[in-house]
């Protein structure tokens, strides 16, 4: 489903070249729940940005859902993100001026669904994360955990092929983090592929598979967790 071969990403300033990813190789299968760990500055976020088509890469080969995404232009990448990728951000990234209903509506409008279909998807996904009764609330009226649930509902509303989660529990306390993690596990069980970047080794252990990124390379690939093996 996701195949990266020798992906390199070089950030070039006027006099400094920074290699964020070097010969990065990874294969993610449909239904995987992959955790990506590693120290700060190791290249985790760059990997996530490239995997989510938020950034382009310098060299290598990247197939996503069977498509060579390196050949897509900016509009093509936007469409691909909208149709096939769901994003969950560390800071939730909800739009403060919009209520929960409208926040979940945002990607659906880009997709071009009609009002009836959008309403159905919004209600269904807010129901799924347990916030259907609060759809007219503003994000500021919710706890961090609830906001992240809304972000998950927004990510799921377009029926993406996989979810990319960037430190999804990074801004949450332990209880809320557990709740969000349980929700992601449930989503994965229902068939959605998840790639999660996290600092939290305990949470990483709960995913089916963990890789560690160090100096822009996968240093410990395809390490299946005990839980997944069991």
């Amino acid at each position, binding site marked *: 489903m996701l195949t990266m071969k020798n992906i390199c990403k070089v950030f070039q300033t006027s006099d400094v070249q920074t290699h964020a990813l070097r010969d990065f190789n990874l294969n993610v299968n449909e239904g995987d729940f992959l955790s990506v760990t590693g120290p700060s500055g190791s290249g985790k*976020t760059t990997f*996530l*940005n490239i995997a*989510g*088509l*938020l*950034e382009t890469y310098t060299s290598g080969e990247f197939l996503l859902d069977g498509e060579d995404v390196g050949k897509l232009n*900016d*509009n093509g990448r*936007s*469409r691909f*993100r*909208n*149709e096939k990728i769901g*994003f969950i*951000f*560390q*800071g939730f*990234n909800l*739009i*403060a*001026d*919009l*209520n929960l209903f*409208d926040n979940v*509506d*945002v*990607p659906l*409008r*880009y*997709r*071009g669904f009609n009002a009836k279909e959008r309403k159905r998807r919004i209600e269904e996904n807010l129901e799924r994360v347990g916030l259907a009764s609060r759809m007219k609330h*503003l994000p500021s009226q919710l706890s961090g955990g609830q906001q992240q649930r809304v972000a998950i509902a*927004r990510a799921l509303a*377009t029926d993406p092929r996989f979810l990319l989660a*960037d430190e999804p529990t990074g801004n949450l306390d332990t209880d809320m983090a557990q709740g969000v993690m349980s929700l992601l596990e449930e989503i994965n069980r229902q068939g959605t592929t998840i790639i999660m970047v996290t600092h939290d080794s305990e949470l990483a252990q709960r995913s089916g598979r963990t890789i560690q990124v160090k100096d822009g390379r996968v240093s410990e690939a395809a390490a299946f967790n005990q839980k997944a093996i069991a």
Partner: protein
Amino acid sequence: MLESGLIIRALMRNKIGALLIALQIALTMTIMVNAIFMIQDRQQQMARESGINEEDTFYLTNTIFAQDYNIQVGLQTDLNAIRKTPGVVDAIQINAIPLSGGGWSSGLQTEPGEDKDGIGTAIYMVDDHAINALDLELIAGTNFSPSDIGWRLPAQSAWPAKVIITQALANSLFPDNGQSALGKTVYISNNQPMQVIGIIKNLQAPWNGWSGVERSALVPFQMESRSGRYFIRTEPGRRDELMPVIESMLANSDKGRIIRRLSTMEETREQSYRQHNATNKILMTVVSTLTLITAFGIVGLAIFSINRRTKQIGTRRALGATRWQVMRYFMVENFFISAVGITIGIIGTVSLNYWLVNKFNMTPLGFELIALGVVTLVIVGQLAVLYPARKAALISPATATRTV
């Protein structure tokens, strides 16, 4: 999908900035449309025809200082000499110049009596050459004959028996049928009768701002005055060549007077409407400046809004918005702000115009001018937001994952 609902709901939660810009747009619209209305009103005034030939005419002042000067003989000698000059079509002595700002006026009435209201009329004292010299269009009746021309002496109060009036004056004197004025007797100085022997199409009064500027009368008088004006019409294209020729001829032919204040009718028109032109320029500057300030205000608000929402824009891009969709978001948002401003502006525009019309007796502005204001401000708004919107569209979707 235009996201109109989302944009409106988001705007409703951040009203102050948007409302201030909307009010600025409203103020701009109010001032812009009414200023253009005033400019148009002045331009219409300036575009009115004086009724005389302005391209080939000029005038000068003949001031006599010699004692024992025979004014009547001197005047005839001068006019004969000027009329005989090759290239001159005709010449007259005249007491006032159209549009010059200085002249004579009197009330004309259809019935004698001090208790009757007179119609204010500009009086031009001229001889039988006036229609040709001024190049007026006689649309009914006849010109004066040489025997009609009398001398107007200093302190004289009697008026001649004949008069030629403009069509506008005929319509004012006889509202039911202006053409019926021909042959009728009108009264000047309350009870002195004058028979209307001719009607000319148009001859403006000396005062351009006067509501009765089209009401004029030609009276068959030559003035025995030590200071008089000669009005000269030349063949087309020969005015500038003949001005110094005639000045020098008159000055050299008689050393008992001086010739001064040569001026063309084109200069007179320019001077007459100089204030109008200046006011129009000032109004245009105000309108342009205000529009520019509003445009800068829109740019400023949009840039501020974009800087404040960089992460949000990155998130929208990450969620699948194309660059065009991001750009369109800000353009639609600006359109809504402009729409509110323009709606308030229309109310302000009509209210201010209503006050102007009542205060200064102007014609109310037309729908087309309001439509022009609406279209202009929508275009200005969209152009102003174009650069910030493009800037927003270039925000990377990777901004969404940045923590700072």
